[in-house]
């Protein structure tokens, strides 16, 4: 599988895939509505509003109310797709997500826009590198972190088809369309993008294409690296994680804090079922000023940074 460095024109904002998928669903199902917190523009809902004026509920800048209203819309038979900047959607309304959505098992689809460091130099108030840690313990809540436009659209469609609450990260940070053949998206199922038995990289979201590039570089050095796209954080494909652990070296990489996200989820499984050396790559703390791309470089969330961590794990294994 080739993973050459993509050029800018081949990079996509997953919000476009999100609105396109929601519009298609809405055209075929009157129950689909969208809900937002004054984020019509940043959620790219202008076209949706023009097409379905009665089916966009803008509650204004009021996230707690937005989540409660969405639970109510679901009670009234609607399938609400709720979009807002992920940092505010999750952090500001966390208890509403817990009580009104997850605990009440409301049929609401929460779409966290511009997660991770998508808002770059707007800084940590607008970054959402804690959302997975906040949401992961919530029973009944499906959590999806798609990696590219295709997977974003598939996640949206799968969420609509699922009766129950879902949180989906919708990336603003541009990503390439991943090379896939006959791919099928399934909630709760990891996607093995590359086989390999020397080490495994487990990634999701914007980090998947970097993980593939890292594996490509390692391959040239004779290191066969498995690449796992773990877009479904809840439910978790434990078997795929155990299999990755059987390589004896696991590196996780995510656009999230290193505590409580993808790496935490993988570590919880490996520690119990398949203990093995691992590295957790992500953001160690509130990020300094800089664009998303700068921050990825700064914290080593690059193909080279990932590859170097794999090498170090393998060197330690040889030395041990």
């Amino acid at each position, binding site marked *: 599988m080739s993973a050459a460095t993509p050029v800018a024109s081949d990079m996509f904002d997953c919000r476009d895939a999100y609105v396109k998928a929601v519009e298609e669903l809405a055209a075929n199902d009157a129950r689909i509505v969208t809900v937002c917190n004054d984020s019509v523009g940043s959620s790219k809902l202008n076209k949706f509003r023009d097409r379905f004026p009665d089916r966009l509920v803008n509650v204004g800048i009021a996230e707690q*109310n937005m989540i409660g*209203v969405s639970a109510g819309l679901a009670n*009234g038979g609607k399938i609400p797709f709720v979009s807002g900047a992920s940092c505010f959607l999750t952090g500001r309304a966390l208890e509403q997500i817990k009580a009104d959505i997850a605990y009440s098992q409301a049929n609401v689809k929460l779409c966290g826009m511009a997660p991770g460091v998508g808002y770059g130099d707007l800084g940590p108030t607008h970054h959402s590198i804690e959302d997975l840690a906040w949401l992961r313990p919530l029973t009944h809540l499906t959590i999806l972190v798609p990696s590219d436009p295709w997977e974003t659209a598939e996640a949206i469609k799968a969420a609509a088809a699922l009766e129950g609450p879902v949180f989906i990260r919708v990336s603003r940070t541009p990503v390439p369309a991943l090379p896939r053949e006959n791919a099928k998206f399934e909630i709760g199922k990891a996607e093995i993008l590359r086989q390999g038995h020397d080490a495994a990289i487990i990634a999701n979201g914007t980090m998947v294409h970097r993980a593939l590039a890292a594996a490509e570089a390692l391959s040239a050095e004779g290191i066969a690296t498995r690449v796992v796209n773990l877009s479904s954080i809840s439910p978790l494909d434990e078997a795929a994680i155990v299999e990755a652990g059987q390589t004896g070296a696991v590196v996780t990489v995510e656009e999230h804090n290193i505590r409580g996200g993808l790496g935490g989820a993988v570590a919880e499984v490996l520690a119990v079922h398949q203990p093995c050396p691992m590295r957790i790559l992500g953001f160690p703390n509130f990020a300094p000023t800089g664009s998303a791309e700068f921050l990825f470089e700064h914290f080593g969330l690059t193909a080279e940074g990932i590859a170097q961590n794999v090498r170090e794990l393998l060197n330690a294994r040889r030395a041990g």
Partner: protein
Amino acid sequence: MSLTAAVRAPDRDARIAHIAERANWIRRRSLRMVFDAQAGHPGGDLSAADILATLYFGVMRYDAARPNDPARDRFILSKGHITGAFYSVLATAGYFPESELDTYLQPLSRLNGHPNRMYLPGIETNTGPLGHGFPVGVGIAIAGQIDRADFRTYVLTGDGELQEGSMWEAAMTAGHRKLNRLTVIVDRNRLQQGMGTEETVALEPLADRWRAFGFAVEEVDGHDVARLLSVLEAPPENRDKPLCVIAHTHKGQGVSFMQDKASWHHGVPTAAQFATAMKELEL
């Protein structure tokens, strides 16, 4: 959609008498639940009993055998802690057997300290933390507005609960969208957990505040069933805004030593106090 016998009865006085009788039964039953469980929120159970009885036995359209009927009127207990009264109402309305009330707060009981819609039929959303139920009620009313459905949505909130900002976010949305089929009832017993609302963080002028958020406001004696019935059953078509009913009530209503005392927010009566209270609640 079947209606309760009380609603069908043509004689208004008979309806009112039936509602009052049910309200008193709710008081007695919920107090017994709190005494048996040695836990609960008896003060609020007693202040809201007349409101709950009026809604369930005088106003709302529902069929307990079909709790998910899309055409049902919705009731949301935003003040989710008064489950003694709420479960008593649901049981006597036919959602589950009255005998199950004996399991209140017992290990693994369906009757949790706060209502869970996955445990019991007749519960629209899980409440307990304050400031949650009202926004959900607003969302239900918006769904009805989109569909031009004729069901109504009733939300019962505590007065202390109005210190939560989310309540006013929801009020702003309801007023803006002119949700005339939405009614919020404030159980205005003037006491929150520790002391009076006005000493804690004042709510007055409460009616003016609701009006400023786009609501029609009715102030009633929350223990006057006839008045509650008139206000709650008035056709929503006659107004172009949501309705707020400020129901002036007494925490611990009906039991002399509990009335208007904040300590009975979650106090538990002794055996002697329980006996006295039950005697006072005999009609």
